[in-house]
């Protein structure tokens, strides 16, 4: 128990209340908001910070903003020192000193008690426009941050309780849709108001000193428990790599180095920053790392500076993940921030998956592309209206070591996101949905299957004139971006197609029934949609865990019954033979043997080893060191691959396959491949790496395994 003079009961009460403050403020923000992304998508965040700007309690919403807002508070503190007054509110959105990109606006308010600052509340929303070259805040055409709109390192937005009209009007003057941006900012004011009221009530009830003492103790508690957890995990280096396809293919690499009770994230090897806004700034990378770390490793602890302390980041300056000003960064949240999230999830999961105690917290990649759109159009009565898509929030869950990923299970960093109903979107914008449905076979195959994604199509409807669409797809169309864990395969590829003058009259209801003479495959950019132009988007499936041939056939049969997996994929990918809804066990056995044999190039595989042979030297689902700690062996068949110090991938059977080996909606041939590594004994797939061109395997190293220490 944490040493403190506050009794444990008061401690619990205050801990509880601090979190509740952020929750209540987030609800106020949602209620007061004017956009589907905030009110329905919950693309928002409210957190509490201590008097020095360090994180007190990370709250609800989009959690990659939690540490970024801490930077923002520190900036405001430094800039306005001596001029910070009671009931002031500050506005901050500069991506090079804290924010993720310019449209992510933070409002920050000091909370005064007895004439001194007790702490800060900071909230964020993605405003509907920030005055960049392209509408909506995402600017595909920008070539520097000067074309990405208004950015400030701190403005006094409210002075001693009074909104500064000069500042407010200036902001509204530089944005495209001032009405909705005004509502965005006003809704943040509602959240700030609610959080402050609750905090003042807390100070009044328990005294600032007591609340401070509890938050100090909470930071110490989180740090102690996080360090303890780290020290129980193996020491080693785990690597991951991902790509970003545009004209050139970008490569982003990450190694997680865990030593004792510290964790270092090293992006050395990542490509240089590029000409368009897919780059991200240092603090955006920092925030994105924590989004996955919080959820995977410490969901039960208070998210505060105690979690931040043991972590170090190496991000080469001028690289994609630490862009130098004035490089454009407005696409970061749907580009590099997402890549960082995918990579950190992958390396952390491999680390967790190398521990018998923590493997349950390892996960294959969740929804990996964050693909969305922004529309501008004209309503019937001539008003200009804008709309952000919310389909992206549907997401999909990666598979875990004991269960399938959740179909449309959301995104890992968005604690409470959801899409807006079609009827909600159709109320706010002159268009309509043709369909919105699950994509069969989209989940990454594995012993546990990745969650399915969905596809949808919209057309302009009920407005006047064409609709301008800022489209932000462009990655995941060719490269599989979800990374399977320990033999799991990636989910399907994405697609963004405009069916010019499509067959709207036929009421198309899925991709197969959607047609036009000239379908256009879209990349990142801007296009116009006319009345019968159908905009079709397919998201990406989440990745699987373990070898699909290791999947319980009953689960496959159930997936077929529910329309989640096709009979063809069941047979080809899972080796499960089903006739008229019933499994043919003999057929399955034969099919699985055939596939294993094929993996070994025709050689007969070894059978499954009897009994539970798990040692404490776990490498992954199928690999471990034997009891002696000297040999890498296959858990499934007992085959000894190599010595403990050898790189096991060099001793596995390697096959290079197209992504389509995982099922339909995956690229059949192109620049990206899957590197499959099979056990030379039983042909179990041990790992699947995604590689571009001649890129080779990723090698992880484990130095030592640690014991679970007694929880104090």
């Amino acid at each position, binding site marked *: *128990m944490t040493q403190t003079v506050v*009794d*444990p009961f008061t401690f*619990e009460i205050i801990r*509880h209340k601090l*979190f509740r403050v952020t929750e209540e403020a987030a609800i*106020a923000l949602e*209620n007061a*908001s*004017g*956009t*589907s992304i*905030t009110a*329905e998508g919950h693309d928002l965040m409210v957190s509490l910070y201590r008097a020095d700007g360090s994180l007190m309690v990370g709250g609800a919403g989009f959690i990659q903003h939690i540490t970024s807002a801490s930077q923002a508070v520190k900036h405001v503190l430094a800039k306005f020192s001596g001029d910070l007054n009671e009931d002031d509110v500050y506005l901050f959105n500069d991506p090079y000193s804290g924010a993720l990109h310019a449209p992510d606006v933070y409002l920050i308010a000091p909370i005064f008690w007895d004439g001194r600052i007790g702490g800060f509340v900071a909230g964020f929303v993605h405003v509907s426009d920030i005055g960049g070259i392209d509408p909506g805040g995402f600017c595909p055409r920008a070539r520097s941050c000067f074309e990405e709109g208004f950015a400030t390192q701190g403005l006094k937005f409210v002075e001693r309780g*009074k909104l500064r009209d000069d500042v407010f009007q200036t902001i509204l003057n530089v944005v495209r849709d001032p*009405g909705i941006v005004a*509502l965005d900012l006003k809704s943040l004011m*509602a959240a*700030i*108001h*609610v959080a402050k009221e*609750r905090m003042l*009530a807390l100070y009044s009830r328990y005294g600032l000193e007591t609340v401070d003492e509890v938050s100090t103790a909470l930071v110490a508690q989180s740090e102690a428990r996080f360090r303890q957890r780290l020290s129980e995990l193996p020491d080693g280096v785990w690597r991951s790599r991902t790509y970003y396809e545009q004209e050139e293919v970008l490569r982003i690499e990450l190694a997680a180095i865990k030593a004792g009770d510290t964790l270092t994230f090293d992006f050395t090897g990542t490509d240089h920053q590029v000409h368009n806004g897919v780059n991200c700034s240092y603090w955006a990378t920092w925030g994105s790392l924590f989004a996955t770390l919080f*959820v*995977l490793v410490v*969901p*039960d602890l208070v*998210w505060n500076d105690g979690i931040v302390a043991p972590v170090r980041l190496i991000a080469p300056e001028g690289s994609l993940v630490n862009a130098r000003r004035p490089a454009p960064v407005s696409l970061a949240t749907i580009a590099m921030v997402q890549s960082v999230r995918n990579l950190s999830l992958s390396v952390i999961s491999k680390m967790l998956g190398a521990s018998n105690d923590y493997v349950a*917290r390892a996960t294959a990649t969740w929804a990996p592309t964050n693909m969305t759109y922004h529309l501008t159009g004209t309503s019937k009565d001539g008003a200009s209206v804008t709309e952000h898509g919310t*389909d992206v*929030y*549907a*997401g999909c*869950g990666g598979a875990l070591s004991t269960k399938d990923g*959740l*179909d*449309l*299970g*959301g995104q890992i960093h968005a604690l*409470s*996101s*959801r*899409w807006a109903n*079609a*009827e*909600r979107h*159709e109320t*706010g914008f002159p268009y*309509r*949905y043709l*369909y*919105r*449905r699950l994509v069969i076979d989209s989940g990454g195959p594995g012993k546990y299957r990745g969650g399915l994604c969905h596809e949808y199509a919209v057309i302009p*409807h*009920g407005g006047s004139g064409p609709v301008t669409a800022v489209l932000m797809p462009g990655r995941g169309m060719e490269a599989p971006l979800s990374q399977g864990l320990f033999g799991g395969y990636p989910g399907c590829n994405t697609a963004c197609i405009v069916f010019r003058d499509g067959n709207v009259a036929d*009421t198309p209801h899925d991709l197969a029934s959607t047609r036009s003479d000239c379908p256009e495959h879209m990349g990142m950019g801007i296009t116009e949609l006319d009345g019968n132009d159908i905009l079709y988007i397919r998201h990406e499936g989440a990745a699987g865990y373990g070898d699909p041939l290791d999947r319980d056939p009953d689960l496959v049969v159930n997936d077929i*019954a*529910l*329309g989640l997996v096709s009979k063809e994929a069941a047979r080809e990918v899972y080796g499960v033979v089903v006739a008229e809804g019933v499994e043919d066990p003999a057929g399955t056995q034969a099919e699985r043997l055939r596939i294993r044999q094929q993996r070994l190039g025709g050689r007969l595989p070894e059978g499954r080893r009897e009994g539970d042979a798990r040692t404490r030297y776990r490498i992954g689902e199928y690999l471990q060191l034997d009891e002696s700690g000297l040999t890498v062996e296959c858990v499934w068949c007992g085959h000894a691959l190599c010595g403990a110090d050898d790189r096991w991938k060099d001793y596995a059977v390697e096959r290079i396959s197209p992504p389509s080996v995982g099922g339909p909606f995956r690229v059949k041939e192109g620049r990206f491949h899957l590197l499959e590594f099979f056990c030379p004994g039983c042909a179990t797939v041990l790992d699947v790496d995604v590689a571009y061109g001649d890129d080779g395997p990723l090698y992880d190293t484990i130095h030592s395994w640690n014991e679970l220490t007694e*929880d104090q």
Partner: protein
Amino acid sequence: VSYVVAVDIGGTFTDCVVVDEAGTMTVAKAFSTPPDFSEGVVNALRAQEAGTGLVLAELLERTTLFLHATSIAENAIVDGTLTPAGLLVTRGFEDALRMMRGGYGRWSGLTEEAKKDVLQGEKPVPLIPSSMIVGIAERTDSAGRVLAPAEDEEIERAVRQLVEGGAESIGVCFLWSFRNGENEQRVRKVVRKLYPNIFFTMSSELSPVEGEYERTSTVALNVRLGPVIERYLGRLRGRLAEHGYTGPMLVMQAHGGLLSVDAAPARSVGMIESGPVSGLVGSAAIGELIDLPKILATDMGGTTFKAGVVRDGRIDVERETNVLRYHYSLQKMEIVSIGLAGGSIISLEQGLPKIGPRSAGALPGPVCYGFGGTEPTVTDVDLLLGYLDSRFFLGGRAELNVDAALDAFRRTISDPLGMEPIEAAAAVQRLANSMIYDLLHKQTIEKGLDPTEYAMLSYGGTAGMHMTSIAPELGISRIIIPHSASVHGAFGLVSADIVHSEVTTRVLPLPSDPPEINAIFDELVARVLESVEAQNRRRDEVVIERLLGIRYQRQVHAITVPVSGREPLVLEDLREIASRFEALYTERYGPEAGYREAGMELVSFGVRGVVPLERPHLRKEALGPVSPESAYVETKRAYFGDSMTDARCYDFERLRPGNRIEGPAIVWSPITTLVVNPGQQVRCDEYMNMIVF
């Protein structure tokens, strides 16, 4: 003499209240009898004989109205004993149910803390499997224009397919049907022609509000629940008929009003949690009786703590209504609950005390019951603190074992914490109280309500030992333990009215042309009157209430503002409504949060038709002497403030109206134990409510 009879079926007990013409109330209780609950009803009706002196047949012969609340709806959902059903939806949207708006399905209904553990999130199994959902190539747009009519032939094929696939009921939910129900009506025609007797629900009738996911889910829940409710109510009516009652029967709805038994199955979803809501309605009635317009109602029994707010006779409705994380968009009065009550288990997690949510339930129960419980519960702590007494507890039906409770508490809690048992028990009590406090805080202060303006009404067996300590923390200075506390749900039934509501969604600027607004209201009023007449009530009995959902233009969510003003409304009334909306907004979100420049708009229109029913005229008794001495039992040591203190203890049954007791004191009744803290007083009013102040 004629009677109104009310029966409320709960998990453990079936409660009965009988009110005669003079307003005299008789109460009775029997054990509930799952799975055929109608037997428990008959037993409870038999039990009232002790009060009225009438045997069952005599009572029912003279009964003019039978009122009913039941937990059968939520039970069927929890137990999964629902009807196989089929669903027709707009083609292309067949997956709406199982997609659950993406991530929403993972986190909705979880606490904020549970939402943080994203990996552990699960979606509930869809109410209707995809094999029983068929898409129809139809479409209506947001303006209500039919773009593609639903064709009879396609509907017929779909309905046959579903019935042949095992559906025993059929539902339909098409996009934008709440703007134009034409295509859904075509489905109804076909279904009625093919299967005249099958249970059928259409979304444009049950829940005509925006949001296809929630509307579909509402229909799905209703078609799965409907036949269950239909059968149950049929059985109950049959059972009552056997005993001679064939008169009118009204069933409680979670919106707080009564609905005729004939109309109830079509609106089965409305019965979910209607029992606890009935208790809330009873609280409002007591508030009216003893002139307390603002009430915080709290119910603390064995497994859950429930709370609701009554404001000037009104009860708030719930946000994102769901049951077991299945959403539905019918109005339900807001009841919040946490798994913290007498049976909640106390444990240590990483050295910190935790209470609940695990409950020892009735079996094995608290350690002190001696039914085999080994983990200490809140009731054990209450016993250790000296509040409980075997002679009075549950009417003397359970012998309380202090030593066993002390042993268990020492072993699992106080010794590991290195604390004295009493000190630790008092700390547990404080923690339990603070958790309840947080919940109540959320329901009051965090909603902009000032609890100091409220009285707390408290019922359920465990409430009396906790609420007298929690209420002052919230600044509440009056706590009422109603005389009806033991059968409060049934009491709520005899306090309720017949209610019928209609809502519609239409976006109009505020202020705008009054005739257009009046026309919308007129249409809703006409629909309300029609359905009230269908329940054999006259139009002139109905009191009409109008409600408007208002927001700043382009906002997503609205605030509901009751309409007062002329009928029909004139421009001035609309201006007044607008300024009331702004005042409400500022109160909630602060002075700089409103965006007046955007203008305001109306989004939803609601009409509530209320047919007031006769209330029991609870008889006032003359106030007697102040001294409670005739009820004095003994002086006992119990925990008050921060130490063990001598407290005077009283027997509730022997207290008289007018008696006053000063704290520290304990009052024992067969249904609850009331702890009166030092500095507090309790007074028995002329209705034998205990009022702590």
